[in-house]
């Protein structure tokens, strides 16, 4: 890990993404969902930022907006100091080599009508990084690097198992030497034993190449295992962000506490420990509660939590949380 003094590799500043909500017979725009609401964070070189939250919290939208698969509604996305948030699709093509993504579903994230070699080689061809013969060589190298057999590279995706397909996705992302890979629930669809090997692979690749990860997941244990720093999202906002050990050992936001407490621990001896049980469901992101979004489920909420939006502030050194009461 070589953190350069030149500033963070990726700096997200007050990023927001609103989706129109359509309703009625005429499908008119009747409202907006703040899928991502004023989100800021940084990722350094060789670092993994874990982005954790429950379904609908906007964590995947953050990833896709950074890649400009969704146009951001506001805020800046600075890659290597350059703001790419206003880049045209043509300008984006120039920087896409640096930003890669690995999706959740190993079945639908690979084009079923292309061979594994073509899939992994495609980014190389797009960015003109290798001539035809070199490309095969490079693809073979990638196959070996992610633990696939190069002699299987002319097979089609359906001929591989789920874990192997996820390795193909990783090889595709890795082929162009990206600076950052966005891993969007990349291990969530895999069986435990396969998941372990893909997590090990990602960590090993980071040690070898110094690539950074934005690791998006709902699984607290996986996030803790893989991340240097962790950001917790709830209904479009970051509620807590800090070094991994700080978030997991001394969570400051009541939501983080509840999230940690809800994780079932694979040890029957700890079974009867006291849990913080949140009541109710995650509110609809179309109509989030006013003030602190979490106040409807928060065990310690007070009157002002229902009115004022808490700012994300440094509560302990290097430990930011958005809570009035901490």
């Amino acid at each position, binding site marked *: 890990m070589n953190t350069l003094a030149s500033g963070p590799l990726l700096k997200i500043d007050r990023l927001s993404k609103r989706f129109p909500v359509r309703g009625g017979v005429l499908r008119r725009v009747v409202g907006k969902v703040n899928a991502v609401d004023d989100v800021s964070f940084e990722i350094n070189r060789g670092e993994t930022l874990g982005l954790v939250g429950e379904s609908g919290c906007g964590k995947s939208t953050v990833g896709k907006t950074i890649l400009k698969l969704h146009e951001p509604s506001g805020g800046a996305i600075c890659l290597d100091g350059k703001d790419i948030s206003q880049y045209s699709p043509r300008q984006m093509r120039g920087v896409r080599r640096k930003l890669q993504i690995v999706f959740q579903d190993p079945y639908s994230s690979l084009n079923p009508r292309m061979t594994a070699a073509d899939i992994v080689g495609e980014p190389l061809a797009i960015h003109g990084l290798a001539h035809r013969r070199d490309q095969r060589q490079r693809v073979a190298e990638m196959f070996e690097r992610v633990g696939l057999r190069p002699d299987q590279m002319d097979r089609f995706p359906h001929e591989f198992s789920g874990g192997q397909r996820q390795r193909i996705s990783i090889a595709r992302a890795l082929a162009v030497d990206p600076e950052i890979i966005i891993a969007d629930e990349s291990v969530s669809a895999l069986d435990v*034993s396969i998941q372990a090997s893909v997590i090990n692979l990602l960590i090993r690749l980071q040690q070898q190449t110094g690539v950074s990860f934005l690791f998006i997941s709902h699984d607290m244990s996986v996030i803790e295992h893989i991340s240097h720093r962790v950001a917790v999202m709830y209904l479009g906002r970051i509620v807590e962000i800090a070094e991994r050990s700080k978030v997991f050992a001394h969570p400051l936001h009541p939501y983080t506490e509840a999230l940690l407490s809800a994780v079932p621990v694979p040890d029957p001896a700890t079974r009867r420990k006291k849990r913080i049980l949140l009541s109710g469901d995650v509110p609809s992101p179309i109509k989030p509660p006013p003030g602190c979004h979490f106040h409807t489920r928060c065990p310690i909420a007070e009157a002002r939590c229902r009115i004022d939006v808490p700012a994300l502030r440094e509560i302990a050194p290097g430990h930011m949380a958005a809570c009035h009461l901490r």
Partner: protein
Amino acid sequence: MSTTAAEMETSESSQAEITPTLRVSSLRAEFRTDSGTAIAVDGMSYDVHAGETLAIVGESGSGKSVTSLAIMGLIPNPPGRVTAGEVWFENHDLLKLSEREMQKIRGNKVSMIFQEPMTSLNPVLSIERQMVEGIIEHLDLSPHAARQHALDMLKRVHIPDPESRLSEFPHQLSGGMLQRIMIAMALSCNPMVLLADEPTTALDVTIQAQILNIMCDLRDEFDTAIVLITHDMGVVAEMADRVIIMYAGRKVEEGTVTNIFQNPQHPYTRGLLGALPKLGFAGPVGSQTLNEIPGIVPALTDLPAGCRFAARCSYATEQCVAQYPPFEEKTTAHWAACWESANLPEGNQE
């Protein structure tokens, strides 16, 4: 497999042993596929008693879900078929019952909840209609009393404002809410057995915690026997009294939850435990490598003669490859199918 654990358990224990609520013995289910006959479940046996939670653990294709579908008579035929075994419930072999007789038992005395609550509910019928119909049919109540009962059940699973929920349709409700409704429906006829197939897998962790809590409370209140099918060792540790580990259609280990977690006798169980990232890991990133189980599950259409895990097992010997190990008691009330379990190192994982 010479003697099943279920048989040994009853033969060895005292006469005071209560008969199990549900007994599955030597169940075998096959599916016809393009590439041959897949043996999805092969000689599965278990007992489950009132008020007890039995967890059945396994990865994709282990046969854990097919087992419960077979019990419920819900295996689509074709391509599937139960080719052997018995399922004893209230002195009947469920596999020999007619479809009509099964309908009386399904959703009444034996209930099932599925992973995807959304797909298990009819999207064009209101919650009230779906709940009340089942109650009227099985409990023989008047429509009014049935509605009242449905309301009571919704309150039991902590659904806020149950009156208005009744008139809503599945798509108007969140996943967590729907799963609670499924549980309320499943328990509304006070079943003796609840088969829960990955009931919380599709849910967020805070909602999962709520659902697991509700299931525990209801089990204790109604003395229901729960068969919990899951891949999540965390949920198992949280909920189960006894655990069965399945691999490629067969039971490879069975024991109390403490035994399974603290003294696993099968390398596959140890592998699974070692593959889990554990909360509370504090070392630098990359300082701990998760245990990998190399290779993939054998195709169910082309199963090896010996131990099905042998190709992926670091302790496998020639005997393991040649001969399927007997499912035998290794320590008290703890069975495993492994030739090498005596030679496994100390500790509970790889």
